[in-house]
């Protein structure tokens, strides 16, 4: 069974149709890359999955359970949405780290707040918080940032900040990790370190959706690729096939423009 099933998602802002009849599914442990030009709806799609936008139509299911149905307001209640968001992790283009906290605190804050809802929090407070801290340090170590745990975001390079953001998203152990153009705000010489981290996550079979403009990276790291244009999925398929031998004319045009650059 697919871990994620997206059915007929539609989104409009006023009269502008941003997403039209978007359907796809994703298997556990797979990486999906979404490519397409700016304004094609890629980011909006990710934002719909994370409940930052509410689709006008369609259904989203995680592990066979419907978590969003545009036709059923009961699935859109604020209190439940908050828990459902935890199925997804989100890494933003502009990092969005909390500037007033250290790298470590950025990673652990949400989990600490969430742990307050545990029934045993009062009794085991110290042990719980220590465990969260240890997990946070371990995540930063995996990101190659052990020596940056107590640095504030403004003391870190863009690439380091984005790796902290990835650790922060991983801390809540999401079923599906979403990346929204994770390297677009970085200087070219810093993209490598972030892509390397994502690559190693793919090797560890992390289920991921990556919106990206890095075609070679998408081809090498993703299992599936979706090409979007003007709010619709033009082509989807196995990564190497879509990027090296696209079936659709529009995909070919898009990729050839990349080859020229």
């Amino acid at each position, binding site marked *: 069974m697919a871990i994620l099933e997206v059915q007929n998602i539609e989104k409009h802002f006023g009269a502008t149709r941003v997403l039209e009849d978007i359907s796809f599914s994703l298997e556990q442990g797979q990486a999906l890359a979404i490519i397409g030009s700016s304004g094609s709806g890629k980011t909006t799609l990710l934002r719909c999955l*994370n*409940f*930052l936008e509410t689709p006008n139509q369609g259904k989203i299911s995680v592990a066979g359970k419907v978590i969003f149905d545009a036709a059923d307001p009961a699935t859109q209640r604020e209190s439940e949405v908050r*828990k459902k968001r935890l199925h997804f992790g989100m890494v*933003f283009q502009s990092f*969005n780290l909390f500037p007033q906290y250290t790298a470590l605190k950025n990673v652990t*804050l949400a989990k600490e707040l969430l742990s307050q809802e545990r029934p045993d929090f009062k009794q085991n407070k110290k042990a719980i918080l220590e465990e969260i801290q240890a997990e946070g340090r371990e995540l930063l170590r995996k990101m190659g940032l052990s020596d940056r745990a107590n640095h504030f975001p403004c003391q870190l390079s863009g690439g380091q900040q984005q790796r902290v953001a990835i650790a922060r998203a991983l801390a809540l152990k999401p079923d599906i990790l979403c990346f929204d153009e994770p390297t677009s705000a970085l200087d070219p010489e810093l993209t490598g370190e972030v892509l390397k981290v994502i690559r190693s996550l793919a090797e560890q079979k992390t289920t991921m959706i990556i919106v990206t403009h890095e075609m070679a990276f998408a081809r090498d790291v993703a299992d599936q690729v979706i090409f979007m244009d003007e709010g619709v999925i033009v082509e989807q398929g196995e990564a190497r096939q879509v990027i090296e031998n696209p079936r659709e004319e529009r995909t070919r045009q898009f990729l050839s423009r990349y080859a020229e650059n």
Partner: protein
Amino acid sequence: MFLTVIGALNEGFLQTLKLFAVTLIGAVPLGLVVSFGSMSSFPPLRWLTKTVVWIIRGTPLMLQLIIIFYIPGYVLPGGSPWPSGEAGRFLASAVAFIINYACYFSEIYRGGIQGVPVGQQEAGQVLGMTRSQIFFHVTLLQMVKRIVPPMSNEIITLVKDTSIARIISMQEIIWAGYSFLKGSHGYSGLLWPLFFTGVYYLVFNGALTLLFGWVEKKLDYFR
């Protein structure tokens, strides 16, 4: 003579400080409530709040003081709700100052909150935080950092504005200084005590300026 004057001025300045402190304690949190009202997604509440802020900011504090102190006595069946004497004058002043300053603070807060990038809130949301957790753990400190300079302006103005309470005869420091001109403690026609009150304001505002500089520096560790 000097000691008599200083004693009277000290007593007046104590009232000044009390009004200053009570106004801050009341208006700092009330301003936050008002700013939430003016940012509410429920339009009637938003318009009501904005109208109140418009009226309070659009009329003189002196007029508001007079209305709050005298009008209830005319319209309420039980007469004036304020206790008699200095206690009543102080209470009425405190109410007027708190309402007035909460409205000014609310606009500063609103600017501070809206100045925090929307991505901060979204980052909190996708991490499963509640709205209040996002406000207290993510937005608040970033907002505080932004509002320190305008708030320090407003708070220094408040120190001096307390002298307006003299219009309902609250016995703050200007009232105390002026009393030596009119005749009190066996002196009359003394001009210097009134001018000397300026030293109190200067010293206190100097200390506040240092405090705000320190706070600003403390919050310098993040951008």
